[in-house]
């Protein structure tokens, strides 16, 4: 994923005050971090704020990075994950796996997820349908518990291997695999029930 020596050189230049090196780091990793934040937080605005916070924290703690201990992307993802967990605890968005028929918001008039999902067969446009399916999966992903959600995001969306995920999450690889399996199965159950009700 990254050339260790190149990234180490980039980090050294950045620590020395080279703003161009920092700009290169930001350009390289901002998209990845934004996607992790977006899939975990659920909204674009939160993802943008969280991404900025991640880079601010990274900028301040950059001298603490040791390339001999792990890849830079793992270090960056660890910072992101820790900040996301902090954000989750602060906002108290305890999105444990809920019933598909429970409302997404606390408002009593809010529609349950199954009613928010439009009928896929009613849309002839494949592109629109694909986008709506993506939004449905994204909404279902937000209903997973944080432990399962972060595991499947890092594995299936960020293509990280189990060892890196274990490093980021600070849990054994077996636990990582178990969480990924449970997360995938829970997501499938949610979506299955959704489409069964729609169809």
């Amino acid at each position, binding site marked *: 994923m990254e050339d260790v020596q190149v990234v180490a050189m980039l980090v050294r230049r950045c620590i020395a005050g080279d703003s161009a090196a920092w700009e290169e780091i930001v350009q390289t990793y*901002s998209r990845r971090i934004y996607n992790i934040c977006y899939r975990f937080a659920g909204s674009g605005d939160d993802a943008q704020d969280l991404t900025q916070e991640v880079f601010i924290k990274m900028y301040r703690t950059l001298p603490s990075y040791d390339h001999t201990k792990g890849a830079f992307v793992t270090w960056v993802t660890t910072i992101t994950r820790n900040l996301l967990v902090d954000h989750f605890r602060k906002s108290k968005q305890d999105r444990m796996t809920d019933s598909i028929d429970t409302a997404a918001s606390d408002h009593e008039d809010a529609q349950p997820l199954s009613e928010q999902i439009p009928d896929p067969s009613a849309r002839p446009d494949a592109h629109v349908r694909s986008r709506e399916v993506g939004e449905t999966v994204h909404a279902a*992903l937000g209903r997973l518990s944080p432990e399962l959600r972060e595991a499947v995001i890092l594995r299936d969306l960020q293509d990280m291997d189990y060892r890196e995920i274990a490093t980021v999450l600070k849990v054994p690889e077996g636990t990582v695999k178990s969480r990924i399996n449970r997360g995938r199965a829970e997501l499938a159950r949610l979506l299955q029930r959704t489409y069964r009700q729609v169809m």
Partner: protein
Amino acid sequence: MPDQTSKGMQCNEFELLLSDAIDGVLSGNGLDRFQAHAQVCRTCGPLLAEAEAGRNWLKGLTEVEPPASLLTNILVSTTGVDTQRLRVNERTLQPRISWWERVQASLFDGLLAPVWGIIRQPRFAMSFGMAFFALSVGLTVAGVKPADLREVSLRPKAIQQAYFHTQARVVHYYENIRVVYEVQARLREVKRNLAPAESGVKPARPAKQKDDKNDTTQQPEQNQERNYSQIENDLILASAPVGPSPSVIDASNHDASNRDASSPDLPVVSVTTDRRFV
């Protein structure tokens, strides 16, 4: 999850191999045992199907495009500058900056930054607009036309000349006014000197009457006009003449036999009337 055993594989072992099987790294005898267990186990079979379906759903999610401003915001929030490249581009694209523009930039961005910030507020702009409107209306009412300002010469010599010209006009006006006041003072003095000579013909009124509000000697116009409305309600006393008129004599003679003959003089008759004399 019940710990079942089928064809030599337990459910906990199946769960451990589940990720590898889905990732496609499981092969050989392990894969056969895994698939056999999935077919017979009522718990692990659906779990495999659900995990595969969930993975496929997640793989179908496309990467989200971050906002265009994200990169700039990150750089601004961390280093305080947009980008080196952008600054270089701005430097190359910008034409030569004159010294006046630099002075303006240093004033507005440095010294006058707080004041300039207040001026740029909409509230201040509204107040300035109202003041300008009031000034323009005032100048229009006063008859000042902007076209007249074009003829005004702003050369130092012209300004100096206009200043002295205005000063001379003011001095002349003052002198003229002074002459008028002096003439008026002299005339008043002459009148005052002539006043004792006239006092013999026309006696001076008592001091008490001078202070009277009804003294109209200083108001000749009002004195000439008789305001009958002021005396409208005054009583008019009419009396017969002392000597008898012929008609009265006739009447007196005619009635003498009927009346008391012992009264030789006619009685005085007083009549009061409210009739207005015009």
